[in-house]
């Protein structure tokens, strides 16, 4: 077996060859689409302040979907030598012939231009293990004797798409992410950042932030459950975005009436503008069906504008694909994976992009007080300052859907919660469980404040990310303590 690099073939060459093979075997009537992606992923993981897992992988995947005589099948594999490609084509065509009919086949993407986002950083693509280890070293040093845990990740994808209707595209992208906690006597503080380049990650700054939060989270008290005003930091906001994306702005679920989304309706507070923007880094410039990826406004100043579609869900809804075709999308549906909650100066931020820096704030209205270090940036401080009584929440954890249509979700706080009184964090609070309808929490009149600086948070799978500023909400339903 031979890898792509040894064969001297590009991803585009391989994709074109597979389409050719389908034609040779099944004739010109067979419709075929092929995606080939080379993926180099490396992740250096640390715990108890040392590197305990350190991995790197090089992979290549070929994904073929064919439609023949009214029947559809998809196949994939890692074998890109001639025998492997022939076997993939044979297997997939055989499967299509044996499959029940597919009356909802949406057809292939017609030829259309795809523009690379140009967000490739060679240094990140070919980063050595030492480069990641150095950032871990900096994080560990910066926590000043606390325990540190987390990861530093780099990834590189080079991909191509070809279909039998004449569409072809290629792209390359890189991503770097760091996610770490500092631990102090059972209290954790977190710092997390996703960037297009490894140079965009400052391990020392992230470590210092996590350590400040961990120290501020010491000696937490129990708080009775109930509804509290909250300031959510970007890590917690990312959870809101992720669940809204998966369940609310998923075109298939919308068509099935399983989503709350109602395009044209003012479902959110006017402060909320949500844009899915794969062109902003991390993703290929085309989706699994070869549709060009573009920015898609989902919510504009509180009014729901649209949902994400792949070709199949779009056909079902009588519209066109928004470039959200993904593996498994036929079953679960198309999901936005690069969702941005625009900051307070939304239009300006959209033009200039986020400021992907994380560091301690010099002063700020709520930077000092009984719990110094709970607030570590000016953006959050500005939202905490006017809060008479409420909670500052760093992060959410293990959020799961109780009902997908109303998007009622249960989960827990994690990595630091503080009681705020008269604009000052006065006590660290033990983790709480919540049960809340996310659309309601962001509904008209519910957003009391929005930060100015979105911070990009990495998804668990590279390529996806969630970006928002800190967010002040009028009410969040905490249903119990999490202590044993």
């Amino acid at each position, binding site marked *: *077996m031979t*890898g792509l690099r*040894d064969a001297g073939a590009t991803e585009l060459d391989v994709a074109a060859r597979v389409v050719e093979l389908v034609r040779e075997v099944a004739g010109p009537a067979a419709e075929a689409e092929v995606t080939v992606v080379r993926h180099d992923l*490396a992740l250096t*993981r640390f*715990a108890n*302040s040392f*590197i*305990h*897992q*350190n*991995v*790197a*992988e090089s*992979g290549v*995947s070929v994904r073929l979907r064919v439609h023949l005589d009214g029947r*559809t*099948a*998809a*196949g*994939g*594999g*890692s*074998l890109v030598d001639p025998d492997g490609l022939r076997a*993939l084509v044979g*297997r997939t065509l055989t*499967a*299509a012939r*044996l*499959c*029940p*009919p597919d009356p909802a086949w949406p057809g292939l993407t017609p030829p259309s231009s795809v523009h690379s986002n140009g967000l490739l950083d060679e240094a990140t693509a070919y980063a050595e*293990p030492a480069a990641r*280890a*150095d950032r*871990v070293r900096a994080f560990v040093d910066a926590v000043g004797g606390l325990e540190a*845990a987390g990861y530093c*990740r780099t990834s590189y994808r080079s991909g191509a798409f070809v279909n039998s209707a004449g569409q072809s595209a290629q792209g390359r992208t890189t991503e770097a992410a760091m*996610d770490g*906690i500092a631990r102090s006597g059972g209290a954790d503080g977190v710092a997390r950042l996703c960037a297009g380049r490894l140079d965009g990650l400052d391990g020392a700054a992230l470590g210092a932030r996590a350590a400040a939060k961990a120290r501020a989270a010491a000696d937490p008290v129990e708080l009775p459950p109930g509804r509290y005003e909250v300031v959510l930091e970007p890590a917690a906001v990312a959870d809101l975005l992720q669940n809204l994306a998966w369940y609310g702005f998923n075109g298939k679920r919308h068509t099935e009436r*399983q989503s709350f989304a109602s395009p044209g309706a003012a479902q959110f507070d006017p402060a909320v503008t949500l844009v899915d923007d794969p062109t902003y880094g991390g993703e290929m410039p085309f989706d699994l069906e070869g549709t060009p990826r573009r920015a898609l406004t989902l919510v504009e100043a509180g009014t729901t504008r649209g949902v994400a579609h792949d070709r199949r869900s779009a056909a079902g809804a009588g519209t066109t694909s928004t470039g959200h075709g993904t593996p498994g999308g*036929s*079953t679960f549906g198309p999901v936005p994976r690069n969702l941005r909650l625009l900051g307070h100066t939304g239009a300006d931020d959209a033009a200039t992009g986020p400021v992907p820096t994380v560091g301690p704030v010099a002063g700020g209205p709520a930077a000092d007080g009984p719990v110094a270090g709970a607030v570590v940036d000016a953006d959050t401080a500005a939202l905490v300052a006017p809060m008479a009584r409420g909670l500052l929440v760093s992060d959410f954890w*293990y*959020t*799961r859907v*109780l009902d997908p*249509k*109303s998007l009622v979700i*249960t989960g*827990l706080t994690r990595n630091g919660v503080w009681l705020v009184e008269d604009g000052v964090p006065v006590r660290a609070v033990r983790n709480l*469980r919540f*049960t809340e309808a996310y659309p309601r929490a962001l509904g008209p009149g519910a957003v009391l404040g929005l930060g100015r600086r979105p911070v990009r948070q990495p998804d*668990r*799978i590279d390529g996806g990310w969630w970006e928002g500023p800190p967010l002040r909400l009028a009410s969040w339903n905490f*249903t*119990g303590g*999490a*202590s*044993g």
Partner: protein
Amino acid sequence: MTEFDAAAAAVQAALDAGARYADARVMHLRYESMSARNGDIEELTQHESIGLGVRALVGSGWGFHAVPELSDAAAREAGRRAAAVAAASARVPGPPITLTPAEPAVASWASGCAVDPLGVALSDKGDLLVRATGTARDQGADLAEGLYQIWDTRKWFVSSEGHRIDQHIRECGGGISATSIGEHETQRRSWPSYRGQYGTTGWELVESLDLAGHAARIADESRALLTAPECPAGETDLILGGEQLALQIHESVGHAIELDRILGWEAAFAGTSWLDLAQLGSLRYGSELMNVTIDPTIPGALGSFGFDDEGSPAVRRDAVREGRWVGVLAGRDSAAVAGLDHGGSVRADGWARLPMVRMTNVGLEPGPHTLDEIIAATDDGVLMDINRSWSIDDRRLNFQFGCEIGWEVRNGRRGRMLRNPTYTGIGPLFWRSMDMLSSETVPWGTPNCGKGQPGQIGHTGHPAAPARFRNVRVGVRA
């Protein structure tokens, strides 16, 4: 070049590059899934991949590298790179690493399989889903969905200690669901469980589920749930069906006894554990009815294997005995840190991923009762069945589960159907309140256990039977 040759070349290259221990796994993975919706096939996917992953220990640092090819040159390069990655770990060094001693096995193992799932005609498998989802749709479900999944995995494992093991593991399963959509909420009923039932077995498992035979019933129940009364809020006696109890075991016992979590190795992501190794052997985890085993030898259960991905043989061990915590899930390095003498629970979900501590089959031994006896013995309570939502904190203490369906239990009888049943609690308090346990055990399979960075999806098994818990908080809502 055979798979063993490739693995051996990688191991040797890692040793030549300075590793004091190395192992390599070649894996050939074949996957097939089909989904259907409302009587039509929605998606058929087949995937095949082959690759090699090498693990190297240099000084006190681990390194891992994976490649999608098996040539001698690629295998050797992977071994060298694994050693280089391990060397980079020394920039942030930890304590010395040792491995618990292991007998280097030379062996072959294959899971039991009467009907090869990949050998069954696609048209037959498709017809099964089409028929079941069509029936549910005709019965009035707004959405009727069906799914099967098949994994066919071959592994070749070689270590620098002399292991040489090949395994062939076949897993499959499936299920259906019916969803009815109301104005403000949806209601779903599934068979045989939310995710379906899965095992390390052949297609005979899927055939035994009789998906079409249950389709009309679940459609009826999903519609009925839309107008059923809401599960009341308060504290009451809770009876859980076996499928839900399986996930309760998974989340509040299985993950909690993972040694890597207990040692803090998962602190930043999956979390830690409320368990303290100093209490191993003495901690009261649950009531005396609670006997939990770690058993990868159960024929047909989803967490079964011959050898784990460090070459340790499958061995049955106790995790909880008569309510006391007595065992953990471990790997050779974590066991050595904890002063234990065994690993045996380390697996990776593919050739490109690092083996890590994973549940095997973690399940409750049967109790002395039946579900009917448990209901008959309950004056006032709620019976809940089939998982719908699940959430637990990062120490595996505070949980909240939602089920698809509930029923009032009054004066020893099952009464009204209840919608949106949820319950919440704290793990050890919950398990200590278990006072009745059925003997009607089923080895439920969970094919979607997420853990690790980069993420891995584990397959785990959980023998479980209906049980009763006293004074549990139910009916939590937004």
